[in-house]
């Protein structure tokens, strides 16, 4: 066994977070684990290594899933930052309303909203896809679902973005986002049942607290997690759907002709352009990874997007191919901490892909504009210049 190789890459530099795939390829070819002294971090780069780490919470603890001590401190006691067995109970409460079973009744509503929104945009002939689709759609769905209205709904985008950004290292982006993330935190620690729409999931969490199913004072934490996790990631995915179909018209055509490929196409969007760059863990013991020894207590960064493009696992990984159906992609994580909202994300993603495939023959897009971000890789603006209706 030997000490991991080093790289002088700064994984949070502006150039890399905007276009991470060349750096991912370089690190992945170096080894399954690479030490980044600039970030004081060991990154996992290959599919199998990442998946094994996600499936082994006893060795790879979630207590430092963020990359600065302040945010990790703030997250203690949440489902996200805890390990089994504590995690198991918190997760059950968090995911109870988000399981595909609980969401079954929503499919029709979500599909209808997607069809209507896409129809309006197709009729307009040209549009800005991020504000009018990628942001508009999940905001509407998540706000209704959790029961947000008024100023909370108006702030969801800012708050959701900041909640992700502060998970990064203590760089300028993190520092600027802390006050905004603090607004969300403050609101969540004082929110009451009656602030949320009757019949909503958020209201249901307060009912669970009143029944004693979850400890007193924890309903706000769960609502915080719904908002923090469910907004920015979905916006990134939907923006990516539009950009990838704009860039690969033949792939949109394939889905138009084979509507059965809608789930496969969404899985491929998530594999090809991962919504979340990196996720943190800490080693609870000295551990051998890919033949190298990583010390106990090391900060680990799981490079999800690097694993999704690992040629050891996917053939021609740099090709966007809607027929691939990569159901085992890493973008939702895997195992005990696998994305709790993935059922809802699939409903939303499938609804958008399906509405586009049904109503659009082709789109002409401008170059997507991306801005640097610590955790999520999303498109800031994307002009659809022309739509040819189906």
């Amino acid at each position, binding site marked *: 066994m030997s000490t991991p190789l080093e790289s002088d890459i700064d994984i949070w530099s502006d150039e890399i977070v905007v276009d991470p795939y060349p750096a991912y390829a370089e690190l992945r070819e170096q080894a399954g684990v690479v030490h980044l002294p600039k970030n004081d971090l060991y990154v996992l780069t290959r599919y199998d290594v990442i998946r094994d780490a996600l499936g082994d919470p006893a060795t790879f603890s979630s207590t430092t899933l963020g990359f600065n001590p302040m945010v990790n401190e703030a997250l203690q006691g949440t489902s996200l930052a805890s390990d089994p067995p504590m995690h198991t109970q918190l997760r059950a409460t968090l*995911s109870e309303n988000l399981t595909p079973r609980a969401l079954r009744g929503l499919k029709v509503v979500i599909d209808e909203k997607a069809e209507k929104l896409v129809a309006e945009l197709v009729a307009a002939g040209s549009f800005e896809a991020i504000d009018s689709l990628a942001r508009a759609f999940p905001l509407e769905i998540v706000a209704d679902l959790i029961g947000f209205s008024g100023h909370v709904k108006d702030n969801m985008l800012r708050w959701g973005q900041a909640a992700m950004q502060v998970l990064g290292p203590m760089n300028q982006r993190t520092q600027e986002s802390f006050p905004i993330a603090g607004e969300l935190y403050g609101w969540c620690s004082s929110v009451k049942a009656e602030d949320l729409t009757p019949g909503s999931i958020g209201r249901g969490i307060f009912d669970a607290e009143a029944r004693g199913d979850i400890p007193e004072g924890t309903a706000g934490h769960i609502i915080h997690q719904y908002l923090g996790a469910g907004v920015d990631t979905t916006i990134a995915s939907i923006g990516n759907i539009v950009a990838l179909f704009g860039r690969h018209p033949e792939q949109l055509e394939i889905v138009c002709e084979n509507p059965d490929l809608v789930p496969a196409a969404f899985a491929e969007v998530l594999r090809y352009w991962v919504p979340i760059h990196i996720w943190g863990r800490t080693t609870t013991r000295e551990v051998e990874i890919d033949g190298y020894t990583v010390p106990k207590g090391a900060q680990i960064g799981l490079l999800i997007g690097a694993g999704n493009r690992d040629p050891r696992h996917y053939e021609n990984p740099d090709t966007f191919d809607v027929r691939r159906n990569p159901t085992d992609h890493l973008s939702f994580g895997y195992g*005990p901490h696998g994305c709790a909202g993935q059922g809802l994300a699939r409903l939303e993603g499938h609804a958008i892909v399906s509405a586009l495939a049904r109503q659009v023959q082709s789109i002409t897009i401008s170059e997507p504009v991306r801005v640097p971000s610590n955790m999520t890789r999303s498109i800031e603006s994307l002009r659809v210049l022309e739509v040819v209706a189906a």
Partner: protein
Amino acid sequence: MSGRIELDRPRCEGHGLCEEAAPRLMHLDDDGDLVIDVEEVDGADLEAAKAAVRVCPVAALRLVSA
């Protein structure tokens, strides 16, 4: 070679990807709960069972060698 499919029921959230991978071996019932229809598998079923275990997003399924 043969094997047995085991379900960690509390962990299952009903995502249903396993059902798509191995429709002959398991299905979600009307309540959205997973039912393992064939537990002991070999031959082509073994391959399908492996695929189902692989796609479970929350690692609720495993295959034990018989």
